């Protein structure tokens, strides 16, 4: 009996090692390549590793009045505006969708989902022609507006789910004790909703930081965000510069991944009602 | 059909001993009820027989074959789950046919067996329904049919009736018993309901903290409980603890002014449990002179409750013990009365 068990154990162990190797290579391989390139100064085929390592391209990107730093600040500023405006309109909308007897509620929710559930590119193309007529193509305002469309999905849906998950009796209890409706919202509901709202803000921030297509059509060539800069570098086979920016754009995502781990339980996503 | 033998089965979860050296034999065609409070390990026992729990030590032999580490799908056991676990996306027919399809039987044979099973549990005509369209009792029958149709070596019933109304529960209890005898299938029946266990089983095993406290025929266990826990679990309402006294005649305890002898292995001053069942005490009246078969003692009616067919009295003895006694007599609250009980029906541990 133990012999059979031991053989089975070994077979399972070997299988696991094979899966770890393949999966690890498949997942980390492409990222590792980008990471290596960002520290490479010379890397010619067929050397397994760069012939010359160095921080030259990182230094180029991060010191002095570099194009990369300008783009970074621009990207972050746009993302912060998008988060602020997005939350400002989504919190009332999410609260109403969760608590009020709004007519056509299902249709409204689907409408807010559409930007993610339908190809976006034609919308951005037409947005750019509309903005061109309005003279806001190639401006920060135009790009911010483009980012807002896509993030509205996350902000409205996540805030709705968050408010739905807070029992209404908690508000009722406050009103029962003499608080006003508005007071109960700000004192009771909003603090309880904070984790969900933060999750929503993080989603919106990352989405805006990484947004390419809308920026490309509405903002180019005047608005140079980090993704646009990276795309230009990569298309021009400037592998080191592109890789440096790619890493810079990946770090916030990975940091937030750790934070979001609390919110991103598979069951939670299911709870969003998708 | 096969004999099931369980030898030294042990399973621990961290600090908790779910099964502690359990030894059992279920004969071919026997229905064994495994009885115990929640957390006693009865679920772990049945789940390790089905293969969903890997025991830390011990063996499970089914028809002489060691299945301790066999995969669940290779064991040929059939389990009826507490929640029935009828697949919601399949009709009654698909649920019942599933196990047969896995066994690669011919379509004719599948049809024949399904008809047999539907007839067996009296469900003909409901084949096309989905589980959610059935009543609890009907769902239970489907679960039973699904388990029996694959011709298992052993049937495992995990609290099969606990989700049903009392009325349906009584009826299904007898139906299961009849079915089991007709098919002569080795069966383990898990329950926390002592009445269910005693009424349905050929043999009863009482489990607590993963240990077998007592095993035997229902009558045997009921009339000779090994300790106060068994006695209490099998439906005694009264467990009184008192200290052992000693005089020239030997060890004793006092109850309602009556002297009850205590077994000699006890020490004076040690605690003993006196167990008396609520329905085995006669209220009022005097015991004939020279009757050594009964014990007579006295108490005061403290409170009473009307239960329909009878009344439940709370009696307080002079020692300050309180007893619950069922009787069909009507007695005023506050009255002092005599109580009479068979000597064999007072259990002292």
């Amino acid at each position, binding site marked *: 009996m133990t012999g059979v068990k031991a053989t089975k154990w070994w077979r399972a162990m070997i299988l696991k090692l094979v899966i770890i190797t393949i*999966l690890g290579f*498949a*997942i*980390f*391989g*492409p*990222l590792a390549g980008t990471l*290596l390139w960002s520290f490479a100064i010379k890397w010619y*085929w067929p050397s*397994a590793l760069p012939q010359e390592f160095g921080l030259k391209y990182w230094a180029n990107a991060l010191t002095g009045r570099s194009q990369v730093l300008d783009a970074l600040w621009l990207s972050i500023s746009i993302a912060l505006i998008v988060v602020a405006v997005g939350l400002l*309109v989504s919190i009332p909308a999410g609260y*109403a969708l969760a608590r*009020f*007897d709004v007519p056509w509620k299902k249709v409204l929710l689907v*409408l*807010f989902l559409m930007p993610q559930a339908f*190809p976006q*590119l*034609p*919308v951005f*193309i*037409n947005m750019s*022609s*509309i903005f061109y007529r309005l003279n806001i193509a190639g401006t920060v305002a135009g790009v911010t507006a483009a980012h*807002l*469309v896509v993030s*509205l999905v996350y902000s409205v849906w996540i805030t709705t789910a968050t408010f*739905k*998950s807070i029992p*209404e*009796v908690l508000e009722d209890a406050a009103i029962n004790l003499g608080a006003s409706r508005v007071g109960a919202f700000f004192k009771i509901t909003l603090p309880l909703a904070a984790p969900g709202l933060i999750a929503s803000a993080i989603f919106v921030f990352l989405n805006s930081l990484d947004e390419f*297509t809308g920026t490309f*059509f509405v903002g180019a060539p005047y608005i140079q965000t980090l*993704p646009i800069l990276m*795309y230009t570098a*990569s298309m021009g086979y400037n*592998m080191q510069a*592109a890789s440096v920016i*790619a890493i810079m*754009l*990946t770090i916030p*995502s*990975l940091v*937030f991944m750790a934070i979001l781990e609390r919110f*991103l339980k598979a*069951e939670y996503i299911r709870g969003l009602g*998708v | 059909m096969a004999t099931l033998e369980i030898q030294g089965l042990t399973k621990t979860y961290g600090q908790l001993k779910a099964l502690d050296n359990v030894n059992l034999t279920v004969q071919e065609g026997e229905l064994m009820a495994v009885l115990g409070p929640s957390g006693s390990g009865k679920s772990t026992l049945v789940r390790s027989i*089905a*293969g969903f729990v890997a025991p830390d030590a011990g063996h499970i032999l089914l028809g002489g074959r060691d299945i301790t580490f066999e995969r*669940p*799908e290779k064991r*040929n056991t*059939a389990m009826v789950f507490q929640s029935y676990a009828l*697949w*919601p996306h399949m009709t009654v027919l698909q649920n019942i046919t*599933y*196990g047969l399809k*896995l066994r690669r039987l011919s379509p004719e044979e599948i049809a024949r067996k399904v008809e047999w099973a539907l007839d067996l549990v009296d469900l003909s005509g409901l084949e096309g329904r989905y589980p959610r369209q059935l009543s609890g009792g009907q769902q239970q029958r489907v679960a039973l049919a699904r*388990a029996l149709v*694959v011709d298992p070596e052993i049937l495992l019933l995990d609290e099969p009736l606990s989700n049903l109304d009392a009325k349906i529960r009584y009826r299904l209890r007898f139906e299961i018993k009849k079915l089991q005898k007709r098919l002569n299938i080795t069966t383990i029946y898990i329950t926390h309901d002592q009445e269910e266990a005693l009424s349905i089983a050929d043999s009863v095993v009482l489990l607590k903290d993963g240990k077998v406290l007592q095993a035997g025929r229902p009558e045997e266990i009921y009339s000779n409980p090994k300790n106060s826990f068994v006695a209490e679990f099998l439906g005694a309402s009264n467990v009184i603890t008192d200290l052992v006294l000693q005089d020239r005649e030997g060890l004793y305890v006092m109850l309602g002014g009556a002297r009850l002898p205590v077994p000699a292995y006890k020490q004076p001053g040690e605690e003993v449990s006196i167990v008396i069942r609520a329905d085995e005490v006669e209220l009022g009246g005097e015991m004939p002179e020279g009757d050594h078969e009964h014990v007579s003692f006295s108490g005061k009616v403290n409170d009473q409750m009307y239960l329909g067919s009878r009344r439940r009295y709370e009696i307080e003895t002079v020692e300050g013990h309180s007893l619950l006694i069922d009787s069909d007599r009507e007695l005023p609250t506050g009255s002092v009365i005599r109580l009479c009980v068979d000597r064999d029906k007072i259990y002292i541990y």
Partner: protein
Amino acid sequence: MKTPALMQRASLSAQQAMRRPPWAGGRSGLPGMLLILPALAMLAALYIYPLLSSIVMSFVSDAGVGLENYRKAFSLYLIDMLYTVGITILSLAIVFVISVAIAGYLRFNRWPFLNFVYRLPLFIPFLIVGHSMRVFLAPHGILNLILSRITGIPELPGLAFGWGGLVISYVWKQFPLATLLILGAFQSVEDSYIEAALNLGSSRLRVIREILLPISGPTVLVAMVLTFVSTIGCLTIPLLVGAPKPVMLPVDMSFRVTYFNDWGVANALGVISYVIVIVLAYYYLKHMVREEGA
């Protein structure tokens, strides 16, 4: 596990709210609409208006109002349309197999390593996936570097700049979300359903196919539709790792605008991509409904 119960309770309280009199916190539609209005206005101006305009403009060309743009789109890009649908369906099929396999494995076994690693691509933006795959899959990329050392063959064809690279990149980026959603659905299937099937002699593979997948049908559907839409609509990955010919429809759309300044045909291609999404979602939905009814 906790969330659905909470949601249920919340929806119950929403129903109660509807029946409340106005002086006890009744929540009628009008103030609710006012609260939604800013978000809705934003959506209407920034999304629905351009969306409708893309449909309207697809019928407008130099030749006036008509189907001229569509005629041109089909004559120029029929191959690309078929290519796009083919690549998307192939990626979808691979995503389905991988995510069901991982979700199925994790439903039966605890493996924190796998549970952590599979989510990583979820947090890497499309653009960076495109760039990384460009580096990784190029003829002289990292993958070939390693493969040629193992096999000893000095020059291997690169996967990038072809259909292989496209499919790998799409799958790499898309399978984590599908896995996350499907695993969530699998985990909310009661243990006893699985155990009942194993008990009757079913293998784990069959349990996944015959018990877990059908019970999780709606979520699997959502996962697949989301995957399909973001694959067919993605511009960056085909720009960075696609072949020069044939190309995916988003690239055609983008080139039509940036190089030819031809908005009509670009919009026609856009509407065609809407139609592809709707048709495929419809067929998939119908298929799922039939499966469930059978």
